[in-house]
């Protein structure tokens, strides 16, 4: 076993850099991500589209296309083992068993030509040597667990006969089939309507408490965050810009990006003609600024230093980290400035 602190965490990501090859050049979509997930913890990763949330989650599973992407630096420690060092063959033993994943689109995440049962059984056959009959019984059992009515019928049906909510329940059933230690849910409710969304979140929460697993929930919906999270990680343009527990994040957001996001949520108790938005979009990988804060040109509070000095993630109060030059702690100590720049 490596360091002691790793023993208690389900997942430790240290200094992760993941990039894509564009025209032969490596552009990083995830830069210097450090995070840890404790057992039974729900960690939410938020940020708008293109922030590197999904890339990060796929890096953990090592599922990014090998041909044009690369984890160039850092380590992902799961169960005391560095997942970035594992071969595909070794990763296949982890995927679906110790870490599993739920995807955004329940409509396309199930193969249209196979019955629900055969897709449920696939994960069981991949990792155990159950007989067909056992796998079927376990499948029905799982469907019951995720609240599917008439499971012994549904197991023989095809995905197209089921509603989006049902399909997402089935995805959850597949992902919890082998009691994984970590469940990565990549925007699991984005494609569902609001009432179904609430049901699915409730279900995930219930299963999480019962099965003692940790969840890493990736979302851009702060409502979901408020509902589910213990800890929140805000990402912007591939970097973590703020980490806090859920209460602190909503009561005292530190980073201007987080503040803008929170103020963009429509509120029932306010009369407004226009919704707050954050002007501009996330810079594309090719146009990412090399120096300075990546949020600078969209930031309402930006000042001179913001485009010249790259802020670092630092503690701004107890259990609350941010990456913004408004806080003195985030100024890089002079010795590490050059190193930071060279690294990028």
């Amino acid at each position, binding site marked *: 076993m490596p360091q002691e602190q790793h023993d208690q965490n389900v997942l430790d990501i240290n200094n992760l850099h993941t990039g894509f090859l564009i025209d032969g050049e490596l552009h990083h979509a995830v830069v210097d991500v450090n995070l840890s997930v404790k057992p039974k913890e729900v960690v939410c990763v938020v940020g708008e589209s293109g922030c590197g949330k999904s890339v990060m989650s796929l890096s953990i599973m090592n599922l990014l296309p090998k*041909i044009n992407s690369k984890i160039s630096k850092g380590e992902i420690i799961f169960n005391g083992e560095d997942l970035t060092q594992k071969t595909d063959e070794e990763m296949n033993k982890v995927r679906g068993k110790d870490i599993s994943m739920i*995807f955004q689109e329940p409509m396309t995440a199930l193969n*249209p030509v*196979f019955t629900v049962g055969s897709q449920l059984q696939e994960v069981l056959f991949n990792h155990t040597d159950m007989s067909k009959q056992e796998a079927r019984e376990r499948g029905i059992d799982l469907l019951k667990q995720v609240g599917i009515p008439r499971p012994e019928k549904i197991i023989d049906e095809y995905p197209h006969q089921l509603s989006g909510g049902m399909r997402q329940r089935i995805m959850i059933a597949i992902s919890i089939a082998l009691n994984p230690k970590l469940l990565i849910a990549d925007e699991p409710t984005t494609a569902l309507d609001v009432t179904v969304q609430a049901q699915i979140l409730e279900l995930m929460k219930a299963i999480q408490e019962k099965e003692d697993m940790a969840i890493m929930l990736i979302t851009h919906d702060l409502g979901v965050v408020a509902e589910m999270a213990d800890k929140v990680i805000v990402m912007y343009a591939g970097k973590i810009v703020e980490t806090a527990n859920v209460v602190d994040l909503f009561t005292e957001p530190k980073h201007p990006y987080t503040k803008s996001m929170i103020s963009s949520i429509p509120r029932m108790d306010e009369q407004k003609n226009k919704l707050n938005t954050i002007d501009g979009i996330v810079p594309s990988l090719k146009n990412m600024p090399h120096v300075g804060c990546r949020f600078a040109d969209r930031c309402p509070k930006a000042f001179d230093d913001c485009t010249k000095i790259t802020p670092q993630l630092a503690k701004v109060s107890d259990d609350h980290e941010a990456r913004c030059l408004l806080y003195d702690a985030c100024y890089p100590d002079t010795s590490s400035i050059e190193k930071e720049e060279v690294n990028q």
Partner: protein
Amino acid sequence: MEPATKTSSANAPRKPKFDSTWTIARKKFMKRKLAMVSLGFLIFIITVSFLAPYITDTDVTRINMSEINKEPSSEHWFGTDRNGRDVFVRTLYGGRVSLTIGLLSMVSVTLIGSIIGSIAGYYGGWVDNLLMRFTDFILTLPFYVFVIVLNAILIGFDRVAGMWSLIIVFSLLGWGGVARIVRSKILAEKENEYVLAASSIGSRPSKVIMKHLFPNVMTTVIVQATLLLATYIVAEAGLSFIGVGVPPDTPSWGNMLMEARQTDVLQDKPWIWVPPAVCITLTILSINFVGEGLKDALDPKTTK
């Protein structure tokens, strides 16, 4: 079991309430009369050809100089050719050769094309580039010229007899089209999240391709395969007709047509060349109708 029973217990046999894609396709296909009739004819002609040794005990290669160019009679149903060989028997055996060439070439071409196309489409990047440039290379070769040359070379080695050399040559040169189609289908299909989802539960790439991707492109491949069957039967006939296909000692429909190159046979002795010609025409037509039917039946957009 009576259809009225509504009980559904957990240990009841698997009895899906709804039809699978294949059942739906089968039902749709069965509604197409022309396709069904064609399928019936194809099954008939394939059965008759392959059961030839059981239908007649006449030796197909026997030359009988005392009975040359005889008109159809009760003894020789389709008459005899200018070497005194029974045309009916030769048509049966010829069908066996022609259909074997067509079917085996189709199977191997589809197989090679599917494997290469799937790998190229799934892995992408340099693998795709390499395989597809190779495919392009194969497709640039002038098909018939190479078939004739390779066939001549293969027949030159005495080991590969008769129709087998033609099957090998067709297989080596024909898979380019299928590979391209399968690749483009896989490219579109692999964007679906179920592919990522399958990898995320620990399925190997080979399993993802075989179990998840391929069944979703299978419909296209099946339709393509039926058309290939027709292509290779025609190609065999054409090549044999000009004398560069199946060696003359092996009867095939194409070989038999070769007789019609003589003007007197063409004009005065239709019984020698009409039977194989009719067989080829009807077979190709049927294959095309069946292919058309399959195309409609497997297309999810058609409802009837």
